[in-house]
Structures are given as C-alpha cells and as structure tokens.
C-alpha cells in the first residue's frame, strides 16, 4: 500500500470515527445539557435535576427493580443457555440449527406481540404464583436469548469444546466439573458479553413492562417525564453512563485466555441485527 493511499485510509477512518462518535455523543450531550438547565430565562446551570433523582421513591424502586431483573435475567439465561449449548455441541450437534432458530425467534416477534401472548400467562401468574415485578424476568429471558446466544456461540466456537471435555472426562472429571472448571473459564469473556448484553437490554426495556403494568426503570422515567422532564432526562443519561461503565468493566475482564474482544461484541450485535 502506498503512503498516499495509507494516509487517505487513515483520514477516512478518523472521519468515520468522528461521525460515529458524534452520532452517539451529540444526543447524549443534548440530554445532559437539558438536564442541567435552570428554571427561567438566562438561569444558571444547575445539577438540581440530578440531585432530585433520589427524591422520587418510585424512581428508586424502578431502578432497584430493573437492576434486580437484570441480574436475575442474566443468571437464569446463563444457567439455561450455557449447559444447553455445550450439550448440543457435544451430544446433539444435529439440533444446533433448531436451538439457534428457537433462540433467534424473539428477534422476529415484535415486543407488543409478545405482550399479547404473555398477558394471560402473567394474569395467571399474578393470581396463582406472584405478581412481583421480578416475574418479568421470565419474559426478559426470552427477550435476551438472541443476543446471549450469539455471544455464547462465538465463545464456544473459539474453543474445541469436544476435545477439552473429553480430555477432562478421561482425567476423571464429572460433567459438572467439565462445565465449571474447563468450559466456563475458557468462554469467560463470551459469558461476560452475553451478561452485559442482557443487562443492557433489561435496563432499557420499556414496552413489555409498560404493557404488563410493571413499573421498571424505563416506565418510571417516562412517567416522571410527564411531571419533571429534567429529572427524567438525568436518569436516562445516568442509565446510559451505567451501561458505558459496564462496557469498560467488561474490557478489564477481557484479559487472558478465552477472551472475546469488544469488536467481537460489535460483530455479535451486527450478526443479530442481520
């Protein structure tokens, strides 16, 4: 590659980076600007909207509920998906397409359609089991399946699951040990990525919670937006920053064998969208 061509490519990359950065940062900057406006014309900048976040108990309850939902969804999703995907790879490879199809199916179903289907189930659960907001995690597990599946599939494809599990079996390991001591450490980054995607999705979910009448974070933000737009936007910015923080944390965990880089995560997102 000639020097001039390399320079052009470099300039192109920088321009694309700046445009992409602007695409993400300008709206967030605008939201932050809005959340720090004072009341009245020519009023000074203030962080009162940010300070007021804690004055709304419903909002705090929504935040706590969403965080709990994110944690439960991630854990149950991993507990279901990791052993299933490993088992399918080892024992039932012919089923892999079926499992993939099932996992990707929620992508093709609009959230509002899911709500229509889930409504009678939640009605029954409310009457017979529990009407806690945490029951939303059942719906969210379905919702995060496509993203989690892709992330975990990328991780499992990067290692020779069959040989590693057979090697550990021949050394005396039971199936639980194979999973916990051999497979999981080697797909650690994929697990983190799947968890992160799940957390991000749950923290940003609105449609299902609103229509099933559960007040999660997003529902509270929208509700608050009708009475105090400044606080509502401050919370929205805070939740975005929380998501970014998770990404940064993830990049710290992504070290050592079995790591999946952030660009792999982007690839997963692209493949899911495709």
């Amino acid at each position: 590659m000639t020097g001039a061509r390399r320079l052009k490519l470099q300039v192109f990359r920088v321009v694309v980076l700046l445009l992409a950065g602007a695409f993400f940062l300008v709206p967030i900057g605008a939201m932050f600007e809005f959340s720090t406006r004072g009341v009245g014309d020519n009023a000074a900048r203030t962080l009162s909207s940010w300070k007021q976040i804690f004055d709304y108990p419903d909002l705090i309850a929504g935040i706590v509920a969403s965080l709990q939902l994110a944690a439960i969804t991630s854990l149950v999703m991993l507990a279901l998906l990791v052993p299933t995907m490993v088992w399918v790879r080892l024992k039932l490879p012919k089923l892999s397409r079926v499992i993939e199809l099932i996992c990707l199916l929620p992508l093709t179903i609009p959230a509002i359609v899911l709500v229509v289907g889930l409504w009678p189930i939640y009605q029954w659960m409310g009457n017979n089991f529990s009407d806690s907001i945490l029951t939303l995690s059942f719906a969210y597990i379905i919702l995060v399946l496509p993203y989690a599946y892709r992330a975990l599939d990328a991780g499992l494809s990067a290692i020779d699951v069959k040989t590693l599990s057979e090697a550990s079996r021949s050394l005396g390991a039971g199936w639980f040990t194979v999973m916990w001591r051999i497979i999981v450490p080697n797909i650690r980054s994929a697990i983190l990525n799947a968890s992160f995607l799940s957390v991000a999705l749950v923290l940003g979910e609105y449609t299902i919670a609103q229509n099933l009448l559960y007040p999660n974070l997003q529902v509270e933000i929208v509700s608050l937006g009708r009475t105090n737009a400044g606080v509502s936007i401050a919370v929205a910015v805070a939740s975005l920053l929380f998501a970014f923080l998770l990404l940064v944390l993830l990049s710290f965990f992504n070290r050592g064998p079995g790591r999946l880089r952030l660009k792999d995560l982007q690839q997963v997102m692209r493949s899911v969208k495709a």
Partner: protein
Amino acid sequence: MAERAGVEVRLENLHRRYGPVTALNDLSLTIAPGELVALLGPSGCGKTTALRLLAGLEEADGGRVVIDGNDVTTVPANRRDVGMVFQAYSLFPHMVAWENVAFGLQMRKVGTDERKRRALEVLELVGLADYANRYATQLSGGQQQRVALARALAIRPKVLLLDEPLSALDAKVRSRLRDEIRRVQLEVGITTLFVTHDQEEALAIADRVGVMQAGHLEQLGPPTLVYTRPATPFVAEFVGLTNRLPGTVKRGTVEVRGTELPLVQPNAPDGPAIALVRPEAVSLATDADMAPGPLVGTVIAVAFLGATSRVTVDLGDITVLAQMPTSAAAGSPAGTRVRLAIRPDPVLIAREEKAPVDA
C-alpha cells in the same frame, strides 16, 4: 516414577454402528500387560472408534471392554482409569503446563503439594520441567503433545490411549516425539493402544501392529511379520508399497512375466491372478542383456529416499516399482533401458481388483 505394572486389556466382539454405517464389526483384540499395540488403517476403518470405546467416550452397541479382568463396558469415561492423548491439541488453555498435568490428580483428591510435585516429576519425564509455568499458547505443537502425554501419565492410569497424537506435527518433531513416546512407555511399562494412519509410525513404535479395514482386524502381529508376511492383499497393499503384477497360478506357484514365484498359501486354485510383489523384491539385473522380454523396460523416474532409491520402470503394459540401495540405482537414470529381476519370495495373490483374500 513409581508406576503400577501394566494390565491386560481385552476388547471382545465389539460392535458399533453410526446410523447405516458399521464402524466396528465384531472387533476382538487382546493387549498383553505393558504391551504397545498400534492400530493402523485408512480413515474410517474404525480404529479411533475402537480406542474411544476403550476410553469410554462412546458406547458399544455390542461386545465387552475388559481392563485388568474387570468388565468396564458400562463404566463412564471419568471412572475408567485410562489416560488419553488426543489428536487435536487438548491442553486446557486457561491453565499452565503443570496445572494441566495436575488436573487429573486434583480430580483424585491428591493434596496441592503432592499434586505439584508429581506434575513436575512427570513433566521432567517428558523433558519439559522448565516449561511448567507456560500456557499452551506459549508452547510449540510438539511440546503441547508432550505435556498432554505427561498429563495422561500423571494419573498413573491402567491404560494409555494415544489417538494419532503426532498427526498435527511436522515430520522431524513427529519422529522425535514418536521415539520419546516409546521411551516413556517402556520406562513406565504401561499397556498402550496407539492409533494411527501412518504405517511408518505404527511399524516403528509398536510391539504389535493391528491393521484394520471396515471395522475389523485384517491382521495383528509384530511389525516385521505384518510387513514381510501380510495376511491379506489389503494388508500387503496398505502396509508398504506393492506392485500388482498379473500372472497365472499353477500348482502352488504364480508365474509373473516369465518368473515363477512361490505362494504364501500354495493351495490356491490354478488360474489367472494378480501377484502382490514388494518393490524390495524387484531389482535391476546386472547383466547387459537388453533383448526384448517381459521384464525389460525404461526407467521413467528415480526417487531418492536417502540410503535407498525407488526406481519406476515402464514395462510397456505395466509400471513396476523397484527399491534398491541408492548406489545400485545410480547407474540407471530416467530414460535408461533396464531389465528387472524379481526375487522369488513367497507372495500373496489377489484374483481381481480389491478382491478378498484368496491365497
């Protein structure tokens, strides 16, 4: 390294099918204590299936696996007390070499200090004690397989199984590691089953070689016997190179291009047949008589193999390979007219292409 003495291993009438494909068809094999048996055969002949059944990584449709007098046919892999080295690199990527080696000991509840001591001891045995703290990605292919061998031996298994452990390595490392495996196996005295499709490897390393085809053993015997006295045309053609020379069987001999050769099984019925003649049994005649005859032809290629050379001679209707000392082949470059001589060693015959044993 204190090892237990080798134990006897018996595979009895093993059957295994994958859908319509029969991978193992009534396979029976007994491995004596401390013996190294190599299973040799083309891809899909069932040799790896046999090894996996012995390891417990697959279930047999019929037959028994007996280790040290105990029927382990239904015992799961993790309770068979069998060490295995795989074809693919199988070191756990998140563990360093000594942790890999110590993993099996940990599964056996050996204490941390003892675990590390024994892991280092076995790494020493395979010459890799200095690499104990390296991850798999920091080791070459040969080193990884040596660590895998150490890992398999560290648990002091009753049986060692080697599933084409050298096939991913380059020729030089392969040859060195092959010798290393044999040295360690003899030192430890462990009963070993070695699966390979590389005949040179099998012949070089094993006490006995089993040649497999279509799920059953064609021949089982010491390497020299398998090579010099193949039991079937398949063995003759699979192990080493073989010339297929048309001839006629008559009263216990076969006449091939004017030369009478004794038969391995002289009671074969008379009639046309194909004699299977090793290239080593074919040489270049030393006299200068190049008058037209059934064994006179033109050299079309000379392959230098080191101490020996392989000469390809076109006899007009057929091409014949002759292997001889390089000095003997030196005077006959490509294009030279030569006359061949066939040494009257006992030969096998086949009646037609890929025919079953009939001699």
